[in-house]
């Protein structure tokens, strides 16, 4: 069963200047148990898309189902089946940390006793026990992020929506949170992650969609996305002395799209780093050179993202 399915999903806002399309004809499918990334620059339509999937934005056209339930026709039923971990300011600042969890559980139909017990377990899991009586504004950035995720997990949601889960926190906390999210995913949790931090998407997601200006630009597994838009691995080999400019026909190599020779260093762009590396070492040896240093730089989701979405400033 697919956890999320959208067909030609669109949202148009009315403004004094006329109709402004925020999302146009988005068709997506996220399988149950998948860790899926929704990537795009600011204003690309990510929030509107997630808003529609979480029932807080009404679609203008098209259809969307979450956990097999239509978001337009049965929004209340959808809300029972999702957990939403959004930005920091969505915490209830008038309630303590423990009460934020307890009331989320009670809103979902838990008795006070069950909600408190579950809250305790989550406080334990997310290392928040000592801050149980603190208010949201007294928490550190990392604690806020953990509490937001914990709150979204008060019931076992079929789909967990994560919005920039590690924005603005230190690397230690970030990597710990990533581990926690991977553990959740390993436990079968379907997760939809919205982010514009490409390293995060690359570290966590199995598949991702890149959207911009409300339209889907690409949607595939992360390794496949990495091969898009002509992205190549860059292999750099440094020898012990200057290399001849045509190191054994390197320029005519079928796997090499571009090569730069600079003194003792050869930098080649390729889609098959393994075989090229072997050829470079052999060629060096044949030319009487010794290899001092080898580096391969794989294409990043960031470079793919920038290629697809352009580089002009966003709002």
């Amino acid at each position, binding site marked *: 069963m697919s956890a999320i399915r959208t067909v030609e999903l669109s949202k148009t806002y009315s403004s004094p200047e006329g109709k402004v399309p925020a999302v146009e004809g988005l068709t997506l499918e996220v399988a149950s148990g998948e860790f899926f990334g929704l990537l795009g620059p600011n204003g690309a339509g990510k929030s509107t898309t997630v808003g529609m999937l979480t029932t807080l934005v009404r679609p203008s056209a098209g259809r969307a189902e979450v956990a097999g339930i239509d978001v337009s026709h049965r929004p209340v039923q959808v809300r*029972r089946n999702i957990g939403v971990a959004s930005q920091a300011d969505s915490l*209830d600042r*008038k309630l303590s940390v423990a009460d934020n969890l307890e009331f989320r559980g*009670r*809103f979902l139909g838990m008795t006070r006793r069950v909600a408190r017990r579950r809250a305790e377990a989550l406080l334990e899991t*997310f290392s928040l026990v000592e801050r149980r009586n603190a208010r949201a504004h007294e928490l550190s950035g990392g604690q806020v992020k*953990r509490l937001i995720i914990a709150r979204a*997990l008060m019931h076992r949601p079929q789909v967990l929506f994560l919005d920039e889960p590690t924005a603005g926190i230190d690397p230690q906390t970030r990597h*710990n949170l990533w581990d926690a999210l991977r553990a959740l995913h390993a436990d079968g*949790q379907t997760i939809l992650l919205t982010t514009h931090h490409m390293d995060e998407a690359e570290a966590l997601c199995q598949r991702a969609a890149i959207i911009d200006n409300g339209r889907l630009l690409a949607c595939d597994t992360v390794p496949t996305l990495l091969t898009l838009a002509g992205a190549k691995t860059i292999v750099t080999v440094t020898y012990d002395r200057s290399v001849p400019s045509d190191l054994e026909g390197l320029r005519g190599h079928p796997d090499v799209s571009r090569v730069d020779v600079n003194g003792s260093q050869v930098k080649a762009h390729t889609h098959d780093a393994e075989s090229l590396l072997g050829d470079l070492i052999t060629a060096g040896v044949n030319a009487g050179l010794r290899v001092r240093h080898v580096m391969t730089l794989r294409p990043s989701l960031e470079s793919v993202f920038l290629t697809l979405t352009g580089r002009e400033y966003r709002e």
Partner: protein
Amino acid sequence: MTIATGIRLTDTEDTLRSSAPHTFVALLARDLRVLRQDAASFAVRIGLQPVILLFLFTYVLPKIGTGSALSANGSSATFSTILVPGLVASSVLMAGLMAVSQPLMIELSYTNEIEDRLLAPLPTWMFGLQKIVSGALQALIGGAIVFPIAIVLHAPGQAPLLQVESWPLLAIVVLFGSLFSASLGLLAGTVVDPRKTGVLLTVLVMPATLLGCVFYPWSALAPLRWLQILTLFNPLAYFSEGLRASLTSQVPHLPTGSFLTALIVGSAATAAFSVFAFTRKVIS
């Protein structure tokens, strides 16, 4: 910090009794938990203004000899007797209005706090209705704080003369007065730009409170016919007069049929419209 990696969340005991009424009650429980935490500041906020007004009108002014002019309103009742229903009505109105509008304005503009409750599994219009019920409850609590103060505080020999003619009438007036105030609060919280709260208070709320038949019965306005008619557009006037009819029926007041119609129809219409506006605002 390390996060335990074996996050196990499936718990067979947790069969959720998720239903809209359960969620509605849980949302009310959340508001009452917040109110309980702020009990002291709530009591001061609600109680201080009537205390000062009572002190001024029933103690200071009579003591310095200005009070006699105030009680010359065409009836033999003491000024305290006139004032108690009016003060309770205006306090309840303010309590309900503020209980809903103030947090809502902040939640809709500066923070995204409301999102957690919007995601609660109940229709959004019911969440709006819950805000009205919650505000009305807080208005009732406000009334319960102000009422004893209003009875106790008065000048020597100027005790208010209160007599409940009909408990059901009193209950209906108080109930719909509270619902009216909370509905106005939902409307204000939804449509008013929070940066303009000051304007709302000085242009609308303050004149309405001072001119809502708090310090005199409506009939006493006869010499100012234009003001008497203008006052009929003020919800507080019907609430004050309704309480006057229920608590101090010897003082002239509007006919029961007219204030009951105004309170019931007015609160129902305001509630319906404010819930509609709220739903439109939060679900784009």
